[in-house]
């Protein structure tokens, strides 16, 4: 059995995230989920976009494709499409995942390649200085909504479920054990699986909107999730199964 440290580039630590940021907890849960399943790091491709959470691949000893902002799932679709035996995980923030990359997200859910999308939602653009995103709640204070965000936030899980994903789950960085279990399930689900993790941005969103101090902010984001766990689940044949069935080659391409 591999240890979770086998997936981490320990020589590259400490990470670049701010003190109190939830991203490290999520990364730890992901590495533990990999080790729970004893995945071969050479068969994992972690695809990331741009943003604080997009730096996560810097600390992983798997294959990585760190691409342009918002396109992680489109790159992942190419990787998985060409080589279905790979375990493909797309790490996205709320900017990457459901704001600039929203179109790719709904189509990845509809298309159902067996990719796992792990979206860490800290309710704002942390890396660029705390501006509002498509998950900033109405009235949320950010550096581009000083008097409150005038827009409504996406319910991303509902969106992804409606688009047809095989598995949709939600939790927070306050519940790493549950996150680890949900990721295990997502990584072994045929079709598109999506896990949203509510997390903290103590430097911006948390400081402007939540309790003082990162530990209390973790409790705030956990509370904002409501009831964590599986949001939606449906039995689907993944893209490749459907593709080869349609083209009359179902047997040859059985995985």
């Amino acid at each position, binding site marked *: 059995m591999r240890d979770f440290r086998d997936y981490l580039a320990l020589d*590259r630590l400490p990470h670049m995230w701010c003190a109190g940021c939830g991203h490290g907890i999520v990364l730890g849960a992901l590495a533990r989920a990999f080790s729970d399943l004893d995945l071969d790091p050479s068969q994992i491709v972690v695809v990331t976009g*741009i943003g604080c959470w997009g730096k996560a691949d810097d600390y992983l000893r798997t294959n*990585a494709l760190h*691409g*342009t902002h918002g396109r992680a799932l*489109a790159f992942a*679709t*190419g990787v998985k499409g060409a*080589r279905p035996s790979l375990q493909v995980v797309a790490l996205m923030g709320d900017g990457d995942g459901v704001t600039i990359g929203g179109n790719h997200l709904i189509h990845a859910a509809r298309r159902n390649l067996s990719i796992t999308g792990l979206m860490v939602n800290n309710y704002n653009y942390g890396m660029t200085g705390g501006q509002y995103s498509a998950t900033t709640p109405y009235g949320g204070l950010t550096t581009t909504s000083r008097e409150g965000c005038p827009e409504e936030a996406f319910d991303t899980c509902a969106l992804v479920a409606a688009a047809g994903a095989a598995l949709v789950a939600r939790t927070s960085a306050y519940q790493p054990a549950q996150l680890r279990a949900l990721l295990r399930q997502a990584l072994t689900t045929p079709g598109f699986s999506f896990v949203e993790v509510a997390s903290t941005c103590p430097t911006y969103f948390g400081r402007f909107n939540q309790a003082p101090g990162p530990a209390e902010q973790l409790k705030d984001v956990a509370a904002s999730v409501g009831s964590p766990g599986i949001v939606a689940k449906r039995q689907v044949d993944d893209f490749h199964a459907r593709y080869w069935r349609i083209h009359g080659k179902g047997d040859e391409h059985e995985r």
Partner: protein
Amino acid sequence: MPILMQGNAAIAEGALRAGVSFYAGYPITPSSEVAEIMARRLPGQGGIYLQMEDELASMAAIIGASLAGARSLTATSGPGFSLMQENLGMAVMAEVPCVIVNVQRSGPSTGLATRPGQGDIMQARWGRHGDAPIIALCPSSVQDCFDQTVRAFILAEKFRCPVVLMPDQVVAHLSEGLELPGEVTRSERSRPTCSPAEYQPFAAPPGEIPPLAEYGSPYVFHVTSSMHDETGFSRSDPETARKKNLHLHRKLHDRVEDIAEVRYYGPDRPGVLVVAYGITARAARAAVQGDEDAGVLELATLWPLHERRLAEVAGSARLVLVPEMNLGQMVHEMRRIVRHCPVHGLHRADGEPIEPEEIARAIRDSGGEAR
């Protein structure tokens, strides 16, 4: 025995024979035939056709597929090519081999969807932010569509970079004879031979091409769109950035003679040199037929430009004429390269191809310079 084929079909045929196994695209006139043929033929060859949500995603998907070991292709036209610029830059930066077909229609914007243009020449070279050198090929016949597609895959792997094939709408929709070769030379990826622990995906002497592994092999590797060193991990110091940018430039421009194909038709020392590409090069050849003083230099490769060869052929000229279906793009390059004589442009941007007679008239009208 030649067979009758359309330019877009010849591109698809060339790609299939070159061993393409992954296509991702979004339908757009006048390139859609490529997608339709790929969708029909790829599954039978064990390949994957993916119709993406847009061209941003199409370009991203062929990058991902290439890193997973596939020969990958997309096809589009102007509006889609604009969207692809973002991840075309990613392919340049991460040094990912892939082939992009841009069937040029008349612009700007949505423009004239079914009419030809040659207005994407400078976009192909400079359309991305930052310096992002690229290879761009320009076929002028159906045979050329086939041959240059095969070559595009070879260049993409050899130089570890995206290659853009840029037929205009006339060439893409033209049907004429195609001689299909028995077999074609397929591109070979230079794969690492070191031990997996030693592998660095961007380690090579300046200007040399680093070997590229594929995801799923024992070689575990990182690529990134951000500035990076030879390990593939991001790094932002000036020396890393200087080396990387110079490498991207030099790997193409130091080897321009291996990349750029220049075709010259005419007398040894032409007094008038017509420099053209795509369907316009064929109009130019028709225009100078029987003229013992005029020659045509066809740019089968648009980027990088073989500047030394262009200057050499133009050396005897009293006039260089550059006809193109835009309001002046390649003519500026020619003015930069040819300094000893006038360089005139002949431009048309109304969605109509340039007729041989227009070129012949331009030569006649140049009067003293031409004769």
